Structure formats: C-alpha cells, structure tokens
C-alpha cells in the first residue's frame, strides 16, 4: 500500500506531552502564541474554547486530550497551530512547536500494529527523524473525528 502520492512534503514538528508529532505544513496557516480562549460551556474537554484570529472565530482543539496524553498548564512554549482542512479552520493546542522538516515518502512507514485504535485513527504514518520516531497526524481524520464527536 502506498501511503502517500507526493514524493516529499514539509512538516512542522510539534511536541504534545512527551511525544513528537508532525503536521503537514501545506495545511498550516500560522502558528501563534497560546492565549486564553473564551470557554464554551457544555462543549467537550477537547474543545477548551474559541479564539478570534484576524476576525475569524476558531475553535481551539486540545491535541493533548484528543491524543489522550497528559495535559499540563500552558507556559511560554505553548502554541496554537492554526490549520485549514476540509474548509474548516481550527487552532490546535500543542505544548510547543519545535522545527520544520522535510520528509520523503521513503521516510514514512506504516503505523505499528497494536496502537490504541482511538489514537491510531488520527495518525497517518510514522517516520524516523533524527533518530527519533515522529508520528504524522492525519489532519483530515482529525477534523472528521472532531465533527463526529464534538
């Protein structure tokens, strides 16, 4: 099975909890400092609230809850990665934005079996980068999951 049609792509590496994830840079609009969102009472924990970015209201999505990783208090490194996928803009809350990297199709491997299906559905592939594993997030699946669960 071929995982990806394009030969190579740029990715943003972010830290969520203690793990490193990659987000396809073609979907990223901007990365901004964390700021306190306006809470939406009644919404699930994964949606801590809304922010306004350039006049558009965006839902903040706490990736740490979505990936079932422990959440810590936001600090100076906390970032909001604003992505555009399936005509929807969301602000992904990550613990920090680390680096940009370039991955080719050869760098990407299939997900290991036995991964928690809840998390596996949000992931597209696993890559080796600088000797460490890097999980590539499937943004389309993520937005779909949000629409279904929220």
């Amino acid at each position, binding site marked *: 099975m071929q995982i990806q049609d394009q030969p190579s792509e740029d990715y943003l590496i972010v830290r969520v909890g203690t793990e490193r994830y990659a987000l396809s840079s073609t979907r990223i609009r901007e990365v901004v400092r964390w700021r306190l969102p306006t809470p939406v009472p009644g919404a699930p924990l994964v949606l801590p609230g*809304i922010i306004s970015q350039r006049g558009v209201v965006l839902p903040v999505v706490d990736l740490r809850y979505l990936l079932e990783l422990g959440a810590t208090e936001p600090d100076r490194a906390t970032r909001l990665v604003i992505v555009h996928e399936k005509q929807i803009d969301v602000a992904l809350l990550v613990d920090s934005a680390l680096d940009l990297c370039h991955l080719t199709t050869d760098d990407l491997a299939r997900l290991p079996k036995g991964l928690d299906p809840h998390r596996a559905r949000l992931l597209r592939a696993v890559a080796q980068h600088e000797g460490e594993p890097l999980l590539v997030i499937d943004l389309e699946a993520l*937005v779909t999951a949000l629409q279904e669960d929220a």
Partner: protein
Amino acid sequence: MDLSSFYNQFREETAENIRVLSDGLLAIEAQSDEQVRRAEVDRIFRAVHTIKGGARMLGFEPVARLAHELESVLGELRQSRRAPDHDLAGRLLRGGDALLALSVAAVEGHPATVDVDAVIALFAGAIPPAQDAPAPAPSPDPEAPAPEAPTPRIAGVRTVRVRVDRLDRMLNLAGELMIGQQVLANHAEELATLRQMTRKHERAVQELEGELNRLRFSAGQRHALDQRLSAVQGVTFQLQNLVQHQADQLGRHIGQSDMLVRDLEQEVMAARLIPIATIYGGLPRVVRDIAEGTGKLARIELRGETVELDRKVLELLQDPLMHVVRNAMDHGIESPVERTAAGKPETGSIVVIAEALGGEVRVTIRDDGRGMDPARLRDRAVRLGMLRAENAVRMSDPESLDLIFLPGFSTATMVTDISGRGVGMDVVRSNISELSGQVLVESHQGQGSLIVLTLPLTLVTTRVLLVRVGQVSFALPASSCHGTIWVRRDQMRSIGGQPTVALDGRDVVVRPMSELLGINTEMPLKRGERAPALLVGSPQRLLALLVDALLDEREAVVKSLGPIFAKQRNYSGAIQLGDGSLVLLLNPLALIQSASSVRTSTTDPAPAPRRRVHLLVCDDSFTTRELIRSILQSAGYDVTAAVDGADALDKLRAQPYDLVVSDVEMPRVDGFQLTERIRSELAMHELPVVLITSLASEDHRRRGLEAGAQAYIVKSQFDQGSLLEVIQQLLGSEP
C-alpha cells in the same frame, strides 16, 4: 465555440421567464378585462419564445422542443383559437415546471427526470373549442388591481452581476470595520484618562510651588528652584497641549471614519437588498394548488411588493412565508359550504402585507377562515403528550395559541399532502429567530388568524444584551428579550414544583441561566435579596432567566462558531468586543427547550460539584473556638473565626457565609443579639444560625429560637457527631 459561460445566464433567464409564465397564467385567470388579458398572453408568449430561442442556440434540444410546443399552444390562445380555461392553465403551469427542470438538468449536465414526450402529450389531442370553455374558476374580484408587469427596478442604471459569496465577504468586512471603530473608541477613552492625569499632574505641581513659596530660601536657592519649577511647568504645559491635540484629532478621525463606515455598511447592505416580490411569486400558485386539491375557494392578495430585504433574510423568510400561507389555506379557510353557512363570502381571502418600519420589516399574513380553537389546541397537546392535563386546565387562551410552535405539533387530523406533517410552525419560528426576528400569532375563532413575522432589515450588526453569568459574559439578541426584571427572593412562589414570580398578573417560571448552560456557579439569589432576570420566550409563554448582572446593550457583529460547534445548540455565534475578546451569543430558543427538557426528563439535575461551604464560628473562648474550628475543618468545611458577636457582624458584612455557629454568652454582642441582628440589620433571613451554649434552660432555648436561630445545642450534650449532623441538615448537603 465554448458556450459554457452562457449556461448559467440561460438558466437564470429561464427561471425568470418561467416566473413570468406562471404569474401571467394566474393573472389571466383572475382577469376579466379582455384587453389586459390579451396583453398578458402576449407577454407569456414572448417569455416562452425567448426560452425556445436560447435553448436552440445552446443545443438543448428537449428544452427547445417543449418550449416550441408551449409556444404553439400560447399562439392559439393569442389568436383566440383556444380559451384560457382553468384546465389548460393548469397544464401550461405543469409544462412550465417541466421546462425549468429540463433547463436546469441541461445546464448542469445531468439527465432530466422529466419525460418530455409525456409533457408534450398534455397539449396534443383534443383541442377544446373556445365556446365550450368554462368560466375561469375562482371568481375574480373585479376590484382587484391588475398584477403589474414587473418593470426593471432601476431603468437606465448600468448593472453588473456580483457573486453572492463576494457580497457576503464584503458584509463581513464591513462588520470588521465596525469592530475597528469600537477599538478606536477605546483608545479615545484612554486618551481622555491621560488628559485627566495631566491635569492632576499640573495641580500637583502648582501645590508644590505654593508649598515651596511658603518656605525660606536664599536668593540663589530661590532662583534655582524657580528655574526648575518653570521647566517642569513648561513640560506640563506642552504635555497637556499635545494630549489635547491628539485627543481632538483622534476624536475628529473617529467621527469621520464612523460616518464612512456607516455609509459603507449601508451601501453594502443596499447591494444585497432584493424586493420581497421575488418570494411572493410562488404564493398564488400555492393557494391555487391547494384550492384545486381541496375544493376550497380562496384569493390571495399580496401587498408591499417593493419592500426590500437583505438577500439572506429573504432566503430564510421564503419557507416560513410559504408555510404560513399553506397553513392558512389548509387549516384556516373553510370549504365554500361551511363559509356560506357561517355567513361569509364563498371565496376565502388571504392577505399578505409587507411593510418597512424603521429598522424592521413586518410581514403580516391574515386569513378570514375559521381561526384557531384554543381548547382544541390544548386537547391535542395533551393527546400528543406535550402538555400535562393539569397544566392544560391552567393555560390561558392566548398561551394556548403558542402551542402550534411546539416541534411535532400539528392539528391536521389526517396527514395530507399539503400540510399537517408536523414540520411546520416550529420551523417557521426557528427560521425567524435565526434572523433575530419574531413570530406573533393572533386568532379569533370564526373570524380568522393573523400571523405577524417581524424581521430586521440589516444583518450587518445585531443588537445584543450583554449579561454576566458567574464570571463569564454572554450575549443575547436583544430582539429575543422582552425586558428585564428584578426577581426578589421573597416574591418567588413555587407552582407545580417550579419557582415562579408574578408579573402583570401572570406566573412566570424563573430559571437560573447558569443551570441551563451547565455552569458551576452560585445561584444569583443564594446570596443577594434580588437578582436581575431576562424575560425570554414568546409573549404568551415567558421565562425569566436569572443572571448575575446586566452589563450592556450594544450593536455587535455576530460570527459563526463553525461546524465543529454545530452540536452546541445553546449558542448561535460569538461577538467580538472592542478589546478583542469574544463573547458567546446565546440562542434563547434552544435554552428554553433545554429548560423544559431538564424539568421533564429528570427529577433533579445531577448535583454539580459545588464550591466549598464557608462557615463562620463565633466564640469568645479561644479553646472552644479552636475546638469547633478544627472539628468543622476536618469535616471538609472552610471555617473563619470571630471573637464575639460584633466581630461576627463585621465579618458577615464583608463576605458571604453559608452558616454561623455561635456561642451565646459573649461580650459586646451576645449570641441572641447576634442572631436578631443577622435577621434585622443584615436582612439575612435564610442564613442558618446554630447556637451552642451551656445555658440549658427551656427559657433560653425558646429565646434562641425566637431570635431566629435554627438550632440550639447545649454544651453538656455537645459532641462532634451531633454538631456535624445538624449543620448537614441545615445546609441540605455534604460539605
């Protein structure tokens, strides 16, 4: 040659020509003046001819074939070889519908669902001779004004087609500018504060100067001081001038850009305005179809066609308007026999009036049918399980009319093709309130019903009320709020297990907003004597929503929360304040629905995690005080200590407590006096007071209770368990 760029134009043109055809056919039926009729026939002939020409050019053969067929029938009408009877008009209308469907299918390039030959067959075969034609069916009113030919709205002005999403974007940007204005206004306020501070600064310098003048200095010192002082004064003067200048300039700038932004907003809005006549078009057809299907006779009169509304408003108004007219025909207008028996003219009348009133447009739909029977509506609601029988008895007639807006409520005993499918008035109301509009219903049995739809003219900004619930601000559309009241705790009455207050002789149910939103915060009435509440719902069924504070009323641009929050029905969007912060806009309709569902589905909402209970312990003996404090703290309460009654009163004034535990014998203010003064001076009638004393006599116990204490514990019988038990009982919960 690539023709695709003409396709959309053809589709739009065809839709317009089909409208001319439908309107024209209906007008011909209702028209007795031969000349006017002839002119109308000419007009629809031309419309169909245009369709034929366009279809031929673009190679849409089936469309052209059908148009040709219609054209020839209309040609016969023109030459009076056929009579425009009711039956033929019906067939032509169906032909028009088929023509439109075929055109759309051809333009979009998918196969048509219409069988062209079958439609053409409608017009072939026996041509009824003209003299046999029956009189036009629904007897036309000779007084009725002839439907005007739609003349181009602004003749001579050059126009350009603009995509709707581009207009939407422009509207959004105009809204952004409005927010920008608020930011500027905030800056102006800050400048004003700065000005005040420079004045203060000037006064301080003057005072310093005065002070120095009273002191003795040598001539050299005096000279140096004067120099320094005049330097400071010089800077102060410059500072003041500069701030003043900046404030003036900013003020002028704000005033100017305010005007420009408003002009821009109006222009953008005007670009989106469309006359209501565009959605009136389908209504005569609806009336005619239903009349045909039911044997009723009715005439519809449309007024105020030139009233203009925002495109989005019109879009959302179309279905409700259609539905209300359908309902009027189906449920309101009686059969001719019934009408004659009731002494009414055989032909029923439905009048639709649109009028612009200030910033609003009011659309009134009036019929002269049988009206609604409040008792029947109540019966039906009870049968459908939407209303309890005992509540139905108490419900007033105007309130009963409101039942038609309940989802799934339909009074048609038989499900017909026309209405009575149980999707109806609830959709009407939700569509209209989505636009921050309102629906009112009035009905007189035997005389007819009146439905009034009130809509805002503009959608750029919405007037909102800002309220505070707990620590969070929320906005509500001002149009959804019928007013604000103060709810006093001592005026609340429980009726049928629901807290209510009396308002103009009616009982209005009171609910805390925090509970409906699921916010963990204290009830506004738990502490204070009174709390503000918003009146929402329909005038017939009001609900008072308690909030912590009313903050402001203002114009705001409402932004969508997007699809991720689609399931959060309590919110219809968010607004941005001048400082950039977002405030959620509540959807009162959804709130009311959740209010009623909470009541009916569960006996009690799950106990929300509470804030910790705060107790005040008052005893002049250090040992007793600390003993009681440690008992209560280890039981999980927050405890503050007071050294005597007077101290306790001070502490109670400064901060709210949930319960007071007090000794009786104390200096200054004793336990009895403390209790009395809590009730009289502080007016805390509900605050539980527990007295602990060594005075075991019955006389003292009575005195304590007379003073207003809830419990009296004698020290000799004192033990940890009984104290905690009493406190738990009084608070009605665990710590």
